[in-house]
């Protein structure tokens, strides 16, 4: 059964930005969109082992800082070379000022 894990406080992430979150040895990225919604994906680019949290967030897209691999962080969809595989996304919720992400068991 999946579990909701507290990832950060709502103010830890700037609007249209991303922060890293580690849990049980895995890296995740938590995003805050311009309209104040939160999203989460795997922490690494699907092209190579680059942390997405160092990339640029712009117009619903996260750009990998190394090769400009681009993903729609709301759906995980890869938007073209050099990323050809979608990044995994996770459901999020906000309760009492805390952002939770839903992780598989």
């Amino acid at each position, binding site marked *: 059964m999946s579990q909701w894990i507290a990832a950060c406080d709502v103010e830890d992430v700037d609007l249209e930005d991303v922060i890293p979150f580690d849990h049980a040895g895995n890296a995740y990225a938590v995003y805050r969109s311009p309209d104040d919604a939160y999203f989460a994906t795997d922490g690494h680019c699907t092209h190579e082992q680059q942390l997405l949290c*160092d990339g640029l967030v712009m117009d619903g897209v996260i750009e990998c800082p190394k090769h*400009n691999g681009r993903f729609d962080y709301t759906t995980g969809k890869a938007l073209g070379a050099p990323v050809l595989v979608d990044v995994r996304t996770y459901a999020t919720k906000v309760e009492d000022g805390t952002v939770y992400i839903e992780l598989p068991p």
Partner: protein
Amino acid sequence: MSSDRLGRYSLAGPENRAAVDAGLANGAWYRSPIPRKRMKELMRRSDMPAVRDTAIWVGLMVVCAGAGIALWGSWWAVPFFLVYGVLYGSASDSRWHEAGHGTAFVSRRLDEAVYQVACFMIMRDPTASRWSHTRHHTDTLVLGRDPEIQAMRPARLVRLLGNFFGLFDVPVAFKALALHVGGRLTADEADYVPETERPKVYRTARIWLAIYVGAVAAAVAFGSWLPLVLIGGPRVYGTFMHIVYGLTQHAGMGEDVLDHRLNTRTVKMNRINRFLYWNMNYHVEHHMFPMVPFHRLPELHEEIKHDLAPVYPSIWAAYKELVPAVLRQLRDETHFVRRELPPTAQPFNIPAPVNDGRALPLATATA
């Protein structure tokens, strides 16, 4: 001579596996610390600088080509075609580079349009060279992994010098074009171009071949070299500046290290050279932070220069170092340029004692 030694640079040889086993492939490269908020500012793109520069670039080419055509048959055409040739055969390299990174413009369409045109001019397939350059950034100067090492150890000196006029690169480009037209890749390309991307390579090659056949047909039909002076020819007579700039990037520097401060140069250049080269003279900064657009690299340099080896004050200063280094490497493959960091810098990021920047024999590198 050195075909066996230079074979170590092949992506299809055993050095590739050795680099993976040694942890050098897709390694953890050093990056100078920059606060996240400042980094976000530096990564922000603007269309304005690239639109302005592209208008000047294309505008100058149109004016010079027009003047050259009008003066065709007279020596007065030569300076116009020289400028046209450098804009076509040299400046296209930096446009290929910046637009290929997707950082020149905010607009992806503008990036892609400039990229496609520049690829044609510099004779690099858009798809294969995108993947090649991606690998260059992942594994900069890692033997068996980086497909874009210009000055090997020992350097192929005749090739390096000949390429000031495209004498090797252009035939290689046409050989690759012929392979691509036939639906095949080179051995190195097969290592880094994914299967799903390969049809794009073949399609582009067929379009380019049609353009070149058209240019040759026009030259024959009009009994004039002019069509080839305008299309394709500049990659020979105007390409020397892209080699002048390109050699400053990594020639003579350390191999198999995971720190761009060891294997890359930043060189101060004047405004004209920075226009032609689109600020790629800030090359250490570009490799550390590839998503910073060309127009913000001078700011990035100011931000991290305390953490870098001293900048080279001119192209001349870089060549005073790289020419003797490359010549010495002809007889001593272990030689490389050793950079000194200022006291304010973080120490070099050298992953293991055997990977100290020298071109080591395979057995040693994997010991």
